[in-house]
Every structure is written in C-alpha cells, then in structure tokens.
C-alpha cells in the first residue's frame, strides 16, 4: 500500500514531524511503504534543510504564504485530485490532527486521530489508538479509502537523520493563494519553551496534591536544585499554578526521561501516558491506593513536602562531597 506523508514545513517542529513519520513507518514493517511526501513551506532559507530531512526520497515542496488550514486543505485537495495514495499519514502535532480529519472528509475517505500502531492483515487495514481517556486500546478496521491518519504523539521513535538519496523533487508555488474571510491580522507569537520536557533526562512532576500555586512555585525551585525539569498534571496547569507548557500527559508533553519523580499525582491514564516511557518512576503520594503507586517502580507513601525536603538535603550533601 502506497503512503503519502503530509508535513508542515512552516513550523519550527518540522524535524520532529519528519522523524516521527519515519519512526512510525519503520515500526510497521508489514504496513505501508513510504511513497511520497508533501511538504508545505513558506521560508526559502529553510527549504534545503526541509528537503534533507524529508521522510521519503520522493517529495513535493508546496510553497505557501504561511500555514493556514483553510488554504492548505484546498491546496492539498487540488493536488491530490487524482489521488495516487491509499494512505495519507500526518504527524501527531496540531497541524496533523486537524488536517487528517478534514482532508479525509473532502476526499470521501476515513480518518483516525492519534493512531499508535497499524497493521495490514490479509489486505485489511487495522489501526490502533487509545480510547476511554487512555485506559483502553481500541482496534479499528478502516474501510473507506483514502485512509487519513495522524500519529499519536510520542508513540513513534523519532528517526531524525538526514537523507542523502533524494531522488525526485517537484515544486508547486501557491504563495499567492489565500482563502477569503479568515486569518485576517494574523499574528504569531512563539511559545515560551518548556525547557524541553520531551528531551529531559530527569523530570519532577507536580500534581494537584501540591495544593497551591505557591507550593508549585517552590517545586520549580526544588527541580532547579536537583537538576530536574518541572512538569505538572492537568489540574495544576488548568489552575494556572504554572505555565501551560509544563503540562505532561496526552494533552501536553509525552516525556521519555531516564528518571521521573511524581509528587501528589494520582496517575490517571491520560496523565500516565505522558510518563510511561520513563525508564524509572518514583511516586510520592499520601494514598497507597493511588493508581500511580502500582504503576511506579518505587513509591513513598507520605506527604510529599518533608520527603522532598529530605531528598534535597541528601542530594546537596552528596554534591558537596
């Protein structure tokens, strides 16, 4: 089965989009073969870098003024009028999860968002994705082609090496095209970066059990002292105790640290998906029955504050030695 990957080269996360698509396809050896990539871009100075990181050796570069979904969808639908692919694969970022669904609708196909695995069994196309707030894995048979999927964030091992054997590049200039009526006064502000939770080797995660904005601020200091990056659960982020970019879980960062300490977090599945790829997990919780206690390697059942205070002392002591 031929697959076309669709990527957004206008945004700063292009390398991880491309690496994710490659990693995802590599993990499905009996699945589709990567055929072609369609890459939207706006900045000529980045073009060579985008080409070098393309997930496939055959690609189409589509120049646009900037990424605007309404325009991108019209362009993509026009380009793929005589659709050659049965499968369109989109990355797991905001761009991909929106485009997969809307493009499928326009092409009369079927879509699924956040797919973590796919299989081709006797010509049947099977996709897996987490459902029921991440407690269950769902298995779906897709029937209407083209199949348009976005990848579940963090589910693929990112393969981000450059490619030397680019064979076929075609170009389309759509920079003059814009859909009317939307996206006036478009102003982009780059996000504060979360210190790279996704890349961090050691994270300290604070949950609702930390109780207040002040205490969450104190944990930020503790994280600094012990050399960890601070992450938080949804209630902490939604109460604005910390900035949103610290959110860990399906709605935030999917982390892959070597060590994770989670304090005052119950361990709901939508949260746990954000730390489950940690090599080691330590839970600190007053409630022995909290799901995270069983899902951790080691747990301390107690108030997180005196426990962390003592750990900080021990760490400082050993650092001085």
């Amino acid at each position, binding site marked *: 089965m031929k697959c076309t990957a669709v990527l957004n080269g206008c*945004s700063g996360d292009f390398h991880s989009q491309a690496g994710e698509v490659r990693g995802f396809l590599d993990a499905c050896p009996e699945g589709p073969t990567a055929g072609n990539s369609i890459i939207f871009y706006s900045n000529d100075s980045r073009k060579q870098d985008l080409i070098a990181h393309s997930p496939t050796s055959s690609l189409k570069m589509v120049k646009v003024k900037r990424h605007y979904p309404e325009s991108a969808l019209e362009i993509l639908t026009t380009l793929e009028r005589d659709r050659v692919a049965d499968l369109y694969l989109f990355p797991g970022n905001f761009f991909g999860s929106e485009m997969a669904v809307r493009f499928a609708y326009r092409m009369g196909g079927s879509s699924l968002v*956040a797919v973590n695995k796919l299989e081709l069994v006797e010509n049947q196309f099977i996709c897996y994705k987490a459902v029921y707030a991440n407690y269950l894995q769902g298995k779906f048979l897709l029937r*209407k082609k083209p199949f348009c999927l976005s990848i579940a964030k963090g589910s693929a091992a990112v393969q981000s090496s450059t490619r030397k054997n680019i064979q076929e590049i075609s170009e389309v200039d759509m920079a003059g095209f814009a859909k009317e009526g939307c996206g006036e006064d478009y*102003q982009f502000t780059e996000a504060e970066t979360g210190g790279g939770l996704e890349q961090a080797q050691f994270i300290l995660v604070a949950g609702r059990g930390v109780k207040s904005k002040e205490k969450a601020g104190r944990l930020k200091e503790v994280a600094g002292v012990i050399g960890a990056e601070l992450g938080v659960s949804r209630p902490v982020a*939604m109460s604005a105790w910390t900035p949103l970019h610290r959110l860990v879980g399906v709605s935030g960062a999917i982390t892959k640290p070597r060590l994770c300490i989670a304090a005052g977090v119950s361990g709901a599945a939508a949260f746990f998906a954000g730390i489950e790829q940690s090599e080691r997990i330590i839970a600190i919780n007053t409630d*022995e029955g909290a799901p995270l206690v069983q899902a951790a*390697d080691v747990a301390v059942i107690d108030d997180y504050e005196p426990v962390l205070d*003592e750990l900080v002392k021990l760490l400082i002591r*050993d650092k001085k030695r």
Partner: protein
Amino acid sequence: MDILVCFKVVPDLDQLAGSDWFIDSLLRVETGYAKTILNAYDESALEMALRFSESAGQSVNLTALTIGDEKADIYLKTLYALQFAKAVRIENSVEARFSPEAVASVICRYVELYGKQDLLIMGRQSGVGDNAKTPLLAAEMLKWPCITQVTRVEPGEASRLKVTAMVDGGLVQQTVRTPCVLAVGNVPNAYLRVPTLKEKYACGKKEIEVMDLEQFGLQGIFNCFDTGCELQGLALIDRNREGVIVQGATPAEKARALYDAYLKEWLEQL
C-alpha cells in the same frame, strides 16, 4: 449574535479502578457506576461563551446543545441558571462513542433547521471515544472555517471575532468572520462558574427542550451511519510496574531509604 455551544456529558473514568473495567463480547464497557462530569474541554467552551457574552457589548443569544440521554438534564438546568437562553437535548440512547460523523451531522442539521447561528463553539475532544473529530467534521459539513485549540475569543468589528489559539510552536491571534466553528483546547482558569441559589431559583421552572432525531429526519442515524471505521477490539492497557513501597517511620526516614536503595544509584546513571 447567536452562539451555539455543543457539549457532552461523560463518565469520570478516573473513578474506575483496574478491576472495575469490564468489556463484554459486544465490546460494550460498563461505566454506569462512575459519576458523570462535563467533558473537560466542553466545560471550558461553555465558560468561554459566557465570558464572551459578557464582554460583547451587544446582545448575545446563547444556546447549549447536547445529544444524549437524560443524564445531561441537570447540566442543562445549570446552564439555564447561568443565563443560557436555550438548553436543548436531542434524545439519543444509542451507542455513539465512535460516531463523530453522525454526531456532527445531527449538530449541523440543528444549525440548518433551528440555527441562524453565527458561531459554533465545541470542545476539541471528548470521552469516551476520544475522537477529536466532531468540530472539524461539523465545520466541513457546514463549509464554515474552523479554528482549533482556541484559548480565547473576543468580539471584533462588523461580524468578526478576535480569536487566540495554540498552534505548533506558539500562539496565533487572528480576526475571523462569522459564521465559524471554534474548537476549544487547553484553557487555564476556565472552569465553569457555579450559579448562585438565586439564579437557580429564578430559572427553576424553565423546561429543557428535548427533541428527538425524527424531528430532524435523522431517526436511526446512530444505528446505520457508515463511518468507514469499524471498532474490532478493546483491551485494558496494563501499566503496572513493581510498585515497591519504601518503608520508614517518618517522612525523612523514608526519603533516606529511597535515596540509599534506589535514587542515589539512578542519579549516578543519568
């Protein structure tokens, strides 16, 4: 200005312990004993609509719509108390967890028949299907523009809105013309306000509008809609690890035990 907010009432799945999960041979999952909650994104969507109507400086007509059974009625009552002009439930007790195409069709039919809506506000994703598709499909069906991951909406000039939304790597502020669809993302400090007793009392007798699918010519839609995507299996994801509990008489003692037996070595390996 007429605003339609679509919301869903969902079971609080975090209340189910590992042993509570039961998937039967027809792939049904019993969630009846978990309490219901407003889908998290929809709660923000409803609050966002209320804030918008307060800041609009023009009259705003708010309608709340849900497709589901009578479990939603107490939420609809609350929305009346919070000054929603209309609270509508389209009766459905048929399984619709993986049918966002059908849900979007019903919402669009409502807009076409009863609508003249200027703005459709929805959550970006809802349980238990976690589809993250309905607002996108509704926008496609209505041929309205759609903005996803919305965090803020303010009135603009001449049937325009100022919308702030998250995009990959940042935030975008833009002006859009109505009608349009907004899919609400993660919004800090946007829990739904609680009505006062007086507000509750004032609308106590106001009836929820319950409609059925036949009124829309869509009877049976949830039984026969072909989404091109068929559920074939459901399995509980096992996430348990060793869960060793560190012993000690005081928090400090436990911390030392943790440090000596595990943490010290793990930190050295970093």
